[in-house]
């Protein structure tokens, strides 16, 4: 539509840049829905315990093998703008809750697919959007009624929970180890945050969490190829891949005193440009001597505190190494800042930057055992048996780098699940049970609804069924039979509840699909749960993004760059 209709006797009037292309109206809406469907189709087969992996080749020839929805979509290079916006969803989901990245895309795709008949039959998109939104509110109330609260200290329940989350993933053979590791890591890292004392009149909003769980910084995953998966472990302390600076230094210390530095232990010039004019031969010597003295001074200041281990983020000169070796101190150099932070938190040390400012309280004494170990061809420093480690390292062993990468992704997912439950200890049944309950609930509510919104409202309910449907599809049972049975179970439970407790009663029906066998099972007994926050986030994101995409009736390619 770069031009309007030509007025009589004239050429076309070019209003827009002739490069721009424009699709609008129904065509644009249908194209958007098709793009969303395409994205959802890519990852549909990775949902559930019987999921398949995807192998992705990047232009450089590297390969990624994964079934993590976000990971797959990140690698896929799409050009359609709507598809891009779908992929963004998965990213937002990953950052917010870290799980459910596949379901969010499938659900959002299905929401759009179910809207297509309405678009085709000329229902105004705003009506569809209104119906969807209405349904979203209803779905959230159903979820809240369905939720059960879990005691986060109940190890068995927590295990079952994590199990259902990473059950779908590659490492399912090593489930028990993985789950124990995830639980241990998160509980190690969890820390109570100081709560507001009500006196100061602070606002307590949704963000003032009582717990702080910083997995990103304090639960480090170290992947060491070789060994077997059974060798994976969570240390009650930290570990890093560095060797001691001097071979004479001690390699095993019990209850070490640890000093952490972030300054170099070598002579360094000042920041300002300084020139020295030397007129005297003597001066030259003093200059050299000064440098030595400077290092010696620093070392003496350190040695005065009798640490057993000195770790710095910067370099350690040969001279300093010599002094340390003489004083029977083990030294490490060029440690990363993040690693240093972890060591600090595990051992209770404070990172010091000037040697003349060391105080007794800066020395870390929380570590029970320091040991150098050789794994494969490399040396690793282990700080173990810490008294109250608020940081930990997770060691992963496994056949190849690709396997390790995949395990790491799964473990991260598992840890995030645990974290979400620690924040919000409410659970919803997994295996498609929640979705089916919502679907049945929406159908019931929808039939009472009057007006044009009813259609879209019911469509949301139908779209929710995509999760149990895909689950049964992926495990190869008869999709229609299974889903119908499941629906019947939920509907029957609904009716029963109404009979017993009158109109509007809501049943706690936890029947879902066992993703491995495809049989219907009661999730309560089967023990498959998912965190409330993840499920809620999935439904919200899916509906909201579907609404956003439905509202578009015009796509213009080749607009000006942003920021102009």
């Amino acid at each position, binding site marked *: 539509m770069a031009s309007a209709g030509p007025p009589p006797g004239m050429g076309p009037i070019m209003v827009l840049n002739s490069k721009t292309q424009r699709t609008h109206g129904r065509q644009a809406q249908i194209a958007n829905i098709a793009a969303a469907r395409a994205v959802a189709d890519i990852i549909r087969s990775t949902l559930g315990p019987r999921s398949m992996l995807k192998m992705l080749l990047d232009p450089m020839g590297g390969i990624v093998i994964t079934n993590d929805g976000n990971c797959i979509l990140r690698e896929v290079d799409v050009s359609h703008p709507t598809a891009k916006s779908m992929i963004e969803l998965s990213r937002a989901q990953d950052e917010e809750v870290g799980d459910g990245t596949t379901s969010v895309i499938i659900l959002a795709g299905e929401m759009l697919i179910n809207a297509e008949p309405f678009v085709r039959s000329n229902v105004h998109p705003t009506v569809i959007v209104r119906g969807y939104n209405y349904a979203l509110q209803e779905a959230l109330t159903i979820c809240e009624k369905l939720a059960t609260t879990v005691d986060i200290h109940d190890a068995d329940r927590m295990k079952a929970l994590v199990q259902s989350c990473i059950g779908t993933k590659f490492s399912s053979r090593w489930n028990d180890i993985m789950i124990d590791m995830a639980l241990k890591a998160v509980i190690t890292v969890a820390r109570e945050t100081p709560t507001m004392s009500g006196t100061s009149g602070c606002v307590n909003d949704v963000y003032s969490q009582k717990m702080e769980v910083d997995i990103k910084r304090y639960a480090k995953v170290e992947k060491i190829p070789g060994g077997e998966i059974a060798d994976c472990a969570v240390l009650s302390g930290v570990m890093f891949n560095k060797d001691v600076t001097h071979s004479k230094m001690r390699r095993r210390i019990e209850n070490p005193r640890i000093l952490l530095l972030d300054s170099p232990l070598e002579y360094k010039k000042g920041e300002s440009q300084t*020139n020295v004019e030397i007129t005297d031969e003597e001066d030259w010597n003093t200059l050299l001597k000064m440098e030595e003295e400077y290092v010696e001074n620093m070392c003496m200041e350190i040695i005065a505190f009798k640490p057993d281990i000195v770790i710095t983020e910067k370099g350690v000169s040969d001279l300093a190494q010599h002094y340390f070796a003489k004083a029977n101190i083990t030294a490490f150099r060029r440690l990363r800042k993040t690693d240093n932070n972890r060591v600090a938190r595990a051992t209770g040390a404070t*990172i010091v930057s000037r040697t003349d400012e060391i105080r007794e309280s800066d020395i870390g004494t929380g570590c029970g055992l320091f040991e150098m170990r050789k794994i494969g061809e490399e040396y690793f420093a282990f700080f173990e048996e810490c008294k109250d480690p608020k940081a930990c390292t997770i060691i992963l062993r496994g056949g190849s780098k690709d396997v390790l990468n995949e395990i790491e992704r799964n473990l991260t997912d598992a840890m995030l699940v645990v974290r979400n439950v620690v924040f919000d200890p409410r659970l919803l049944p997994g295996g498609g049970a929640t979705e089916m309950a919502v679907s049945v609930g929406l159908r019931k509510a929808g039939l009472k609804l009057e007006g044009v919104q009813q259609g879209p409202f019911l469509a949301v309910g139908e779209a929710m069924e995509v999760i149990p449907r895909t689950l049964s599809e992926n495990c190869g049972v008869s999709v229609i039979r299974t889903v119908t049975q499941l629906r019947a179970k939920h509907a029957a439970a609904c009716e029963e509840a109404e009979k017993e407790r009158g109109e509007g009663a809501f049943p706690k029906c936890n029947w879902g699909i066992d993703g491995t066998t495809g049989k219907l099972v009661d999730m309560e007994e089967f023990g498959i749960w998912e965190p409330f926050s993840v499920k809620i986030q999935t439904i919200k994101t899916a509906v909201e993004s579907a609404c956003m995409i439905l509202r578009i009736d015009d796509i213009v390619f080749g607009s000006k760059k942003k920021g102009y």
Partner: protein
Amino acid sequence: MSAPNPASSGLFINGQRETGQDVRVGNVTAALAVANIVKTSLGPVGLDKMLVDDIGDVLITNDGATILKSLEVEHPAARVLVDLAKLQDQEVGDGTTSVVIIASELLRRGNDLVKNGIHPTTIISGYRMALKAAVSYIKKEMVVNVSELGDEHLINAARTSMSSKIIGRETDFFSRLAVDAVKSVKMNATAADVAGYDAMGSGGHGGGERLAEEPTSASASAGGTTTGGGKKQRYKYPLSAIHILKAHGKSSMESNLIDGGFAINAMRAAQGMPTFVESSADGAHVKIAMLDMNLQRHRMGMGVQVIVKDPAEIENIKRREMDITKERIRKIIDTGARVVLTTKGVDDLCMKYFVEAGIICARRCNREDLKRLAKATGGRVVTTMADMEGNEAFDAECLGGCDSVREVRIGDGEMLYVYGCKGHGASTIVLRGANEYMLDEMDRALHDSLCVVKRMLESNTLVPGGGAAEAALSVYLDDYADTIETREQMVIQEYADALLVIPKTLAVNAAKDASELVARLRSVHAKGQHSQDPSDDGLKFMGLDLIEGTIRDNLAAGVVEPAISKIKSLRFATEAAITILRIDDRISLNK
């Protein structure tokens, strides 16, 4: 136009020339094309546009100004409309789509008149007369004066403005948010503030003066609502004090307003620092130091060389470098600051001092954010610690105060929340949403609503929306035209018809029968205006109900707009149409 006509291109320069009707038709067609692009985004059932740029970045929006800004409009006359939308965005903040639609409709009708042999200057003077009559009618009849504005009206106005936007589904929530946000930044306006701050108001004033026949009363009250600060106590609502932060994740309903709070997109510089500080039990506030200087190891400026004779001096220089920063930090800490924010870097070697003192320190903050925070907490951004005597000191006066500061994890990142700021009003709206595109659009929609609320609070007047004002004006102008004896009569009639484009477009977008609805609307308004019966007085507030496809009293239904924005958009649209109609010659030069 592309094939040079020897008769019309009688230029002895390298270029092309179009004259007379050709250029006018061309311009009008271009303007209509632009209006057509944004037409479907008008009203509560308008839809969004997706714009994809060369790199493939996506923009999803419903805002007329944003759509037109992002399109590469090349036609010069069409550019006038793009600028018009931009102007409306700056001056009023809302109604960008409708202003473009009205202008293009005026042009179309103007062009038809020219074809019927009416000279453009007549059309122009007719449009001006119509505008004048329309503006005075709005002021006299349509305006509802809400001397003590209840929240209800404000919320209604905000809701009307955002109903067409992506957040239109959650208007109850977001309109409340917008009103609370604007109210939280209420300030007493001083005369100087009014003069300086209300450049918008005086801009409208200037626009009024450009109109030669503008009655003095109209222009005085247009500007007077905002510039009459000297007479009585007025308040101002600086929207710049409302900080909008976007973080993807969660749902749009979880967006929130931190009343009297401020959030800044920064994280603690070192992990050893506390995540939370609050005022002590004796009621002392948390003090915040805001710096715009480097807390890195001191270094001489470029090209400065220090030449020393004595080698021992080198050591001293080095030591001094570290001590300078250390002393500075010491001074800051000694003033009792519990939070230190700087726009520049902080050396790792200084972290320990902060960690030991239990201070939250964040580096590389956005300077604009810090300036706002300074205003919010009643502090100052310190650029240097040097005083007149050449010594260094940190003035405790510069510290801002607040109740508590907390580092909060949002999505994958961290932010510092400052609660209970002690200075002038400031608020932060944290927007959450499914993805970045959605957040951007929510930001734009919210901005429009904030502008509307601000206008309402400053001008205290409102008009019914949903096509009510336009329909009333149309009926009134039709009658008015009959009283004119000159040939402007016809022009004014056209102007009256042109205004109906708004209710028409609204009805078309809602897939309703536009002709019937508009006819009914007109007849109701005609009845209201011609009736002597006072009970029919309320009929002038009748507008469209686009969901049901009927007409209703839009004032009662809460579909309202600030009067000033309606007046301004009429004015802008007419001015733009006149500008384009005046053109009868176009020369494009080949470079």
